[in-house]
């Protein structure tokens, strides 16, 4: 037998290096897309001018477009994408099923139902709608968690209960929309499709907070999450407090996703697809959380850019990610079921 320990150590270093390269590449991609969104739109602003605006120098004819329109928009896209990607991936890893994303187990529809109710029935708008949506997202998550509690929470039961709750909420949304007068229908539909239109810089604050607090906690629990992928029993044998970890992950992931949903509306499939895409990129080389967050940011940035600039008529980003995500989602179901369904 060869000097084994050296070979193992070498391979481990190689994997760590690959993981680092993947994260770095994704970061650069985010940066490039961010720059693209800032400089190339209906009008083109030279990269040099963009940089000057970013450090605060006025540039005639471009300051407003870049500083007031494009920058908040791109910033919001990045931040919400990070939230969706990180929160979604944490959920999928915890439940060991890529299909168990917040889009499917009712959290997104909970936030959506609350927002539609607030807009159409209570005739609210602005931050109150967002606040209600966050509350409802968390509420639905707790409801689903509580309803699936029986000798602890089985992942399977949680997913199925979530599907049931989600189906109910969808029909609540449909009913409210069917009674909506046309002006609030427009508003509600706009909210439901998810977009970063009309972004303002103060909207970034809740997202930053969510990323800092919830995201930080999630990343600090990355190793426990990773152990959960081996099954509850094995994770427990490895010294992970399964129930507690699950609770922390649910609160943090739902918190992030609910906040992002409240700010931008439910941008379809970003929470769903970031994890699996990131998994294909980093393979088994390391933690999935950071790459998934970056993939989320890329998806929202690219989707928004496609919808605003590249297509003949303008679409909100949610429609783009929805239309492009749906086929990938179907492909994913096929693959997951064929191979037994872990992330």
């Amino acid at each position, binding site marked *: *037998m060869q000097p*084994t*320990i050296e070979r*193992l*150590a070498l*391979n*481990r270093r190689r994997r760590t290096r690959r993981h680092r390269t993947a994260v770095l590449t994704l970061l650069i991609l985010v940066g490039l897309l961010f720059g693209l969104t800032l400089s190339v739109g209906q009008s083109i602003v030279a990269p040099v001018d963009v940089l000057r605006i970013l450090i605060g120098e006025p540039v005639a004819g471009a300051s407003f477009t870049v500083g007031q329109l494009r920058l908040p928009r791109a910033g919001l896209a990045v931040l919400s994408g990070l939230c969706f990607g990180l929160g979604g991936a944490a959920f999928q890893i915890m439940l*060991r099923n890529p299909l168990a994303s917040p889009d499917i187990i009712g959290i997104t529809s909970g936030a959506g139902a609350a927002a539609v109710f607030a807009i159409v029935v209570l005739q609210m708008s602005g931050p109150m709608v967002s606040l209600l949506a966050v509350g409802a997202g968390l509420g639905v998550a707790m409801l689903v968690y509580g309803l699936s509690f*029986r*000798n602890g929470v089985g992942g399977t039961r949680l997913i199925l209960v979530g599907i049931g709750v989600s189906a109910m909420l969808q029909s609540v949304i449909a009913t409210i929309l069917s009674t909506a007068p046309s002006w609030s229908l427009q508003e509600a539909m706009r909210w439901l499709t998810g977009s970063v239109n009309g972004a303002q810089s103060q909207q970034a604050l809740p997202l930053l907070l969510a990323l800092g607090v919830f995201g930080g906690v999630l990343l*600090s629990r990355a*190793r426990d999450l*990773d*152990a959960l*992928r*081996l*099954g509850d*029993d*094995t994770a*427990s*044998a*490895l*010294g*992970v*407090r399964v129930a507690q970890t699950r609770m922390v992950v649910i609160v943090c992931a739902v918190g992030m996703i609910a906040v992002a949903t409240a700010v931008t509306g439910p941008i379809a499939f970003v929470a769903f697809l970031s994890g699996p895409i990131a998994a294909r990129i980093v*393979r*088994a080389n390391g933690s999935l959380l950071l790459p998934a967050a970056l993939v989320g940011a890329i998806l929202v940035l690219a989707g928004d850019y496609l919808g605003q600039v590249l297509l003949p008529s303008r679409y909100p980003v949610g429609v783009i990610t929805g239309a492009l995500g749906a086929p990938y989602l179907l492909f994913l179901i096929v693959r997951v079921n064929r*191979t*037994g*369904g*872990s*992330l």
Partner: protein
Amino acid sequence: MTDHTLVATGLSAGYDGKEILQGLDLAIPSGRITVVVGANACGKSTFLRTLSRLLAPTKGHVLLDGASIHRMPARQLARTLGLLPQAPIAPEGITVVDLVSRGRHPHKSLFSRWTRGDDEAVDGALAATKTFDLAERPVDELSGGQRQRVWIAMALAQETDILLLDEPTTFLDINHQIDVLDLLTDLNRERGTTIVMVLHDLNLAARYADALVAMAGGRIHAFGTPEEVLTEDMVRKVFGLESRVISDPLSRRPMMLPIGRHKMAGNEAA
């Protein structure tokens, strides 16, 4: 290897308010192989799950070195007591060496880095289970016997002095069953690891156990050496089966031969 005491006192546990274990007392012999046998639904898996903290007892305690394991920090317990559950899950595409490395989890804190000691533990586990040649292969591609050895390797990398295994030979061909039991015996002899496992096959249990536990109705029916426990009387009471117990010519351990209604010598002619 340090000596540990693992003791269950007045242990009751169950699911859905139904008590499956009913006030069970047992001291696990340190540095030995203890095998739990019993009919289906007698509570042997529940016992193992409670012993390993997967299930909280409704009454009584599991004491490791005198301290209740259900109050101990999870990571600290996982450095002394390891468990291989019945149906562990391997994430898709994970390689053998990566899976075995996961066994180091209880030895890592938030900021600690991978060390040479970790590499040595993983390497030792791979060597002990003869899975070194599989190290870079995805776990999904392995055969049942190979996969079970890999899981045992993961438990070894955890470097615990006590190892619990829930039916480690189920679903394996007979040659792999012997393989796994021999491997566990090596481990017990070479590292002094205390092993507690549930086995289905009475004769294999009697052959490999230092101490045999027969459970019935959520209680310990008999506990002792295989010779003391595996008797015709025990088989009748625990399994409801008439049998003859003879001495296994290979191992000199007791061996149970079931008595059925047909195909018995002298009976078929009539």
